[in-house]
């Protein structure tokens, strides 16, 4: 399936990814080539085949609902781009 400029802009928005205007055509071409490769999957009959969610068909292991981690807020926030009073700072979202 071939993607056009508008498709790429739409997907980039979904992925919250800024793409330079000048690069969009290039992405449209390379993504279309990759999807061309991927479209080969349509030649395989998968009627009745279960999708494989885990390499060994294992189910998710569960653990008891207990506190296992200690609070390390300051340590973990040391390298955050912007922090104030233990909170991550972002541009204003509510007026």
């Amino acid at each position, binding site marked *: 399936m071939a*993607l056009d400029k508008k498709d*790429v802009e739409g*997907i*980039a928005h*979904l*992925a*919250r*990814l*800024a*793409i*330079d205007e000048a*690069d969009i055509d290039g*992405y449209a071409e*390379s*993504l279309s*080539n*990759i*999807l*061309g*490769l*991927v*479209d*080969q*999957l*349509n030649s*395989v009959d*998968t009627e009745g*085949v*279960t*999708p*494989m*969610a*885990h*390499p*060994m068909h*294992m189910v*998710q*292991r569960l*653990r008891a609902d207990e506190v296992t981690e200690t609070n*390390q807020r300051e*340590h*973990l*926030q*040391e*390298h*955050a*781009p*912007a922090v104030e009073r233990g909170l*991550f700072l*972002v*541009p*204003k*979202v509510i007026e």
Partner: protein
Amino acid sequence: MSNDMHSKTIAELATGLRNGEFSSAELTKSYLERINASNEKLNAFITVTDEQAMKQAQAADQRIAAGDTGILTGIPIAHKDIFCTDGVRTSCASKMLDPFIAPYDARVIENFQNDGAVMLGKTNMDEFAMGSSTETSYYGAVKNPWDLKAVPGGSSGCSAAAVAARIAPGATGTDTGGSIRQPAALCGITGLKPTYGRVSRYGMIAFASSLDQAGPMAATAEDCAMMLQVMAGFDKRDSTSSERDVPDYSVDLNRDIAGMKIGLPKEYFGEGLDSDVAKVIEAAIDEYKKLGAEVVEISLPNTHMAVPTYYVVAPAECSSNLSRMDGVRFGYRCEDPKDLEDLYKRSRGEGFGPEVKRRILIGAYALSSGYYDAYYLKAQRVRNLISEDFKKAFEKVDLIMGPTTPSPAFNLGEKSDDPVSMYLADIYTIAVNLAGLPGMSLPAGFVNERPVGLQLIGNYFEESRLLNAGYKFQQVTDWHQKIPGEFA
């Protein structure tokens, strides 16, 4: 102290340390000097942790003196910059994580530390492990020590290059679609991707969580066995970690392989395989016949679907995993964001390189409303068929063998403008990840003075069998002892 320490294997170095022939401090210093002398040429390390390494070496020497010696106590090891290392930059070779100092250690790092191994530094790689040539790194491309015009493979390209140039006796790698085995093949070293779940993924920056697996890269199968012994084991902090006991990988290394049944998938020897590579592989298979192995042809009929399947599953998982890089909690943040959406979009747009962006976009597309069934679900169904092929094959054979890559190392820049042709470099390795099986690449010869790798694929949790077959091969061949002239 002799000055040929770099030509020794990990096993030999461990013996030398235990016998007091040299100290870990001497050994570590000699490797740090070799790194300094060649890093400009190879660009193998993003971060060299020299001070920390010398401290760890001194601590190891004390442990050895006290008789408290682990498997790798005092042995210097390089770590792929995908493993979180407490207090040390963990960049994943991305501008996005260039400012990221990990606040904790990955389980793999903890295991090496507890055993007394010394960390030399963090090796360069393809950005977020996405690539087959180590050309997508934010810190620049890496060179193949056998030919500085050639790529070392990827994504664990520098771990492979570092071992090949003997600037590290062993290195860790991760393998999502061939990222240990393919660079091991292209650099002429031994690399093992264990069964999915054998080594903990805790603290290993996630690319595609259902495929990612860490493993050892070293000169020999014996060295890989020693490293895997330290790396493997259950970890409750990785929800897909296996609870199976870890066997002693040294026990079966030298076991007689007469009667071992080896399957050669006809699909791995067909169109697309370089004819000179084919000859090298056939000669390697002949060595196995001489060792008494029985060789039969098998078929893995869905082999040609592995690359298309992978390029749905891996990007889908990566687009989800990499959504955590948002410029808010850690890593790169753009200048002067005008609102929250602008902060997300520009931090990610400026922080990620082109190949990572491509894969995020493909993944976001494949998972988007209306396309999920057609792409992701379809790919997971085909993945099951690929896995079934192996299951049937292992009813008849003990091991599967073939080439690791269709051709020897390509030149820098040769494929970087054509993602699809780059993806096809992993045609023989990707299916193993989709099925979750263990695989290994052994140095098997040269074509035009560039190394060729023989791939061994085993059944689930049969790393011992792979290591045994690798060890036996290396007893009768000397490809694993070859060192590129410039670094000898």
